[in-house]
């Protein structure tokens, strides 16, 4: 019965076993496969998961309704488990007749993570840009919501920058 190394489980024959060529093949293939994993680590060390999402597509937000944006640059699916920093900018494109406050929030699978509000009294609108960390697993979905107090509707664009801080898997 072959034994194996403690960390990666590379197999090797015990002294009382009959040695066959497959023992060499198996060990070589195992080492080769692990080196491919290390190559992936090297690639991540040089090329972290960073993304910059921008789009000219706008979405209409109605006053008093906390709206989840669905435009391409407002959502992100985590490609790998880890800790990421998100910087989201919501850019108003049209301006309601009246507006007193705007809020942009960022969510992990619908759970609130962080956000930013601004005072728009005087009916002035401007970009709003919250940033913060999110810890998640591969496949988790990050979304942006917009809420404002005022009248009518407002069209917005979004821009999202993503930076991986730590890989956890």
């Amino acid at each position, binding site marked *: 019965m072959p*034994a*194996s*190394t*403690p*960390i*990666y489980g*590379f*197999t*090797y*024959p*015990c*002294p*009382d*076993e*009959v*040695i066959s060529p497959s*023992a*060499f093949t198996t*060990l070589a293939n195992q*080492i080769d496969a*692990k*080196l491919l*994993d*290390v190559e992936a*680590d*090297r690639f*991540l*060390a040089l090329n*972290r998961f960073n993304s910059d999402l921008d789009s000219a597509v706008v979405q209409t937000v109605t006053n008093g309704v906390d709206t989840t944006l669905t435009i391409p640059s407002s959502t992100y699916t985590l490609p790998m488990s880890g*800790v990421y*920093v998100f910087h989201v900018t919501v850019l108003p494109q049209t301006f309601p007749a009246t507006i*007193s*406050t705007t*809020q942009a*929030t*960022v969510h992990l699978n619908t759970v*609130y*993570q*962080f*956000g*930013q*509000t*601004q*005072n*728009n*009294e005087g009916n002035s609108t401007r970009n709003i840009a*919250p*940033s*913060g*960390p999110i*810890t998640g697993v591969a496949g988790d979905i990050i979304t942006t919501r917009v*809420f404002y*107090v005022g009248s009518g509707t407002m069209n917005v664009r979004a821009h999202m920058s993503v930076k991986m*801080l*730590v*890989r*956890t898997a």
Partner: protein
Amino acid sequence: MTLSCPEGSNYAAIAKQLHETAMQAEERISELEQELRSAVNRPTIVQTFTAPQTGFIDNLESNFGSSVGPFVYPFNNVPGDFTVDNSDDTYIYLGEGIYEIGVSATAVPAGVVNDNSIRIWQIKHYRPDPGSLDPVLPGFSFVDRTASTQVEANSVIGVKVAMAGTFRIMPGDRILFTILHTNTLSTITLSDIKCYMSKVSDASLTEVL
């Protein structure tokens, strides 16, 4: 790796050599993997605070965060229970370097809201200075800050902030999160508090050559 050649029919030696090959390969690959993982995974702490922090008085710059209430670590790859803010030990342990530090929170008046009252949020960086009489942190001198000023719109939702800054930190330096508000009609309650720190670079990499 050095391997002696087995003699004819010495099958036990072959097994022994494969064992040594496997162990040495594992040792080398493990070292390389750890170095690469360390390069990818810089020291990072994320804290969230498990209860609202209350009673912040108007026109008084006040600390919030680790100095005020309990917290948990959604993520922490730094051995021990160091905190992002209000700690002399954190940056002694982690060493001199460039750090990215951020905080987010929600501020809601506990009672009556002063429309258009101000909320000034700061991430403040202090350095040990025994002779200093700094009003916020005696014994330390102010070095740098990142700040955000917001105006309450009295729209029920309160004020949310989410900001970050980059700081050159020396061992023994301290980070504070502070809020100053002008809501004179009631105190402010802070909730949804989250902070993080990530060491971007060791100091030696920032020298000008």
